[in-house]
């Protein structure tokens, strides 16, 4: 499959997102239908483009940190000298996923205050769990025979990690990263309630002011953003 064909679905979502983000004022009449009684029909406090950019920045920074730390931790505890920590880390990752993301977000505030930073920290903390879990599952799921023959071929520990374990575990790890990013996009939107500037802003403003049009604009953009990113991961996983 050519690159263009493979990227067609994410590209389509991205184009739709960009079009709606930039051309929202053109649809003023449409949005007036859902909010006939309000004066301002299009959310004006921030440009939609800057909200999308900021939302992506929050999720991007948090996901990157979560990937580095999460994969790092999972790799450390699957080495010979880190094995003692494996059961605890593995259990922690699965128990932690029972915690609702909203609760983690809310609990970050008393410790870190309001704003973007506590949101990022909460996103990292929560985003770690699926990545740790899946990296562990991926590495542990490799057949012992494969590992033995790699060792038998005289590969060093580092070579085994980079040339055997990580490539074989790749699909499972990618699935974990996908889950983590999906949750982060949704949780970042709720970050609006603790003072992060995200696409949740129009929704919260709409709820506070009873303006259905604002809510719809925020909701549409978040949904498109999530679908775009998710379809990108879907394509990555197909490879």
């Amino acid at each position, binding site marked *: 499959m050519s690159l263009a064909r493979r990227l067609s679905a994410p590209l389509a979502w991205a184009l739709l997102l960009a079009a709606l983000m930039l051309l929202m004022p053109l649809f003023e009449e449409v949005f007036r239908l859902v909010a006939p009684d309000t004066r301002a029909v299009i959310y004006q406090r921030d440009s939609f483009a800057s909200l999308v950019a900021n939302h992506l920045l929050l999720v991007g920074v948090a996901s990157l940190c979560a990937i580095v730390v999460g994969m790092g931790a999972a790799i450390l505890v699957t080495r010979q000298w880190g094995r003692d920590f494996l059961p605890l880390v593995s259990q922690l990752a699965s128990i932690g996923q029972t915690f609702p993301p909203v609760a983690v977000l809310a609990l970050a505030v008393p410790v870190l205050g309001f704003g973007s930073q506590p949101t990022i920290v909460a996103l990292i903390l929560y985003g770690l769990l699926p990545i740790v879990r899946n990296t562990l599952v991926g590495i542990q799921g490799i057949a012992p025979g494969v590992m033995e023959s790699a060792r038998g071929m005289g590969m060093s520990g580092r070579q085994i990690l980079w040339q055997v374990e990580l490539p074989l575990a790749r699909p499972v790890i990618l699935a974990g990263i996908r889950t983590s990013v999906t949750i982060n996009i949704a949780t970042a939107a709720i970050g609006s309630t603790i003072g992060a500037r995200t696409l949740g802003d129009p929704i919260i403003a709409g709820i506070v002011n009873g303006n*259905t049009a604002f809510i719809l604009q925020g909701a549409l953009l978040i949904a498109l953003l999530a679908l775009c990113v998710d379809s990108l991961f879907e394509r990555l996983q197909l490879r």
Partner: protein
Amino acid sequence: MSPAAAPNPVLLVLTALAASVMLGLPLISVQPNRIMPGEGLTLWALGGPLAVAAVLTLLAALAWLAWRPTRRALATALALVGLCLALLPWGLVAVAAEQIDPDMASARIGLGAGLWALLFVLLLALLELLNRLALGPLPRWGLTLVLALSLFAALAGGGLDSLALMREYHGRSATFHAALRYHLVLVAAVVGISLLLAAALALAMRRWSRLQRGTFSVLSVLQTIPSLALFGLLLAPLAYLAARFTWLGDLGVRGIGWAPALIALVAYSLLPMTRNAYVALDEVAADVTDAARGMGMSPGQVFWQVRLPLALPVMLEGIRITAVQAIGLAAVAALIGAGGLGTFIFQGLGQAAMDLVLLGALPIILIALLVDGAFSALAEQLRRSQGRGDTAHGG
């Protein structure tokens, strides 16, 4: 176990962490009223050198046990850690009695970063010890029960009433109980409805296999859409329907409130529920159903007496995932006026009253953990009894 067991590095690290947390971070804070930030108090400030020496002795004992982790040493360590956890609320009772002047009705004690960190480290140590000792479910649940009873007794005695969290609770106990009940009812309704829908979908997909691909891709796209957005997207059509058909409005269906919450939560629940129901029904080995048919069972009997019981553990897994997910998402639904425990979270965030946030967030986490534990245990139990049944038949 050999007496020359290698040291347990996990416990040693946790002990060191507990020591630095207890000595370095404020354990509690004393606040004159609800809004004023409190003054953080460390272990040294609370109990002086004597308390520090006692804690260090205890931790040194733990470290020593971790250094020679025979089975008996680990069991002793488990008892020690369990005792620490059980006594934690009573320590708070003592501290509260000493620090809070009973005449000052609005003075309160906030739980400091040190105390939360300590609780976390102790729970990790508990998990590690339970792992190493490979104890079965009975001691685990027994231990949980003891810890819960200790906490409950401390709460019921009234010694913790000057805790900021309890002050917030007593200020709105009726609202809290209503919100708790509402949260649980909403989650139960979501689980019930999605179970019925998922069962219907799974059966339909088994009959018409062409449905399978389309259904699963629609459901997984739904799962991708962030909750806040889905609530928002449902708002306009529901408001329109309620305005158009008055009987819907009379039922309480509105753009905001329980209706969008219920619909969105069911939509999210369908993927895990349907996937598990489908896999569960599909996985029951063909030779088992063949054997059942060979014994002269009718298709209905095969379904109700063979397929369904064997599929139950996997379906329970679906219910567990769905329930845990719905408990968290129902909190978000408070933003669109659906009520429930999330109300306290967002109210607290709005008023910068952190203990009100805790009043919403802690019960949500506890309920999620409890539901998760209960359904896991139930599925495990079912699986085990079926396993035993199989071998009994074989032998």
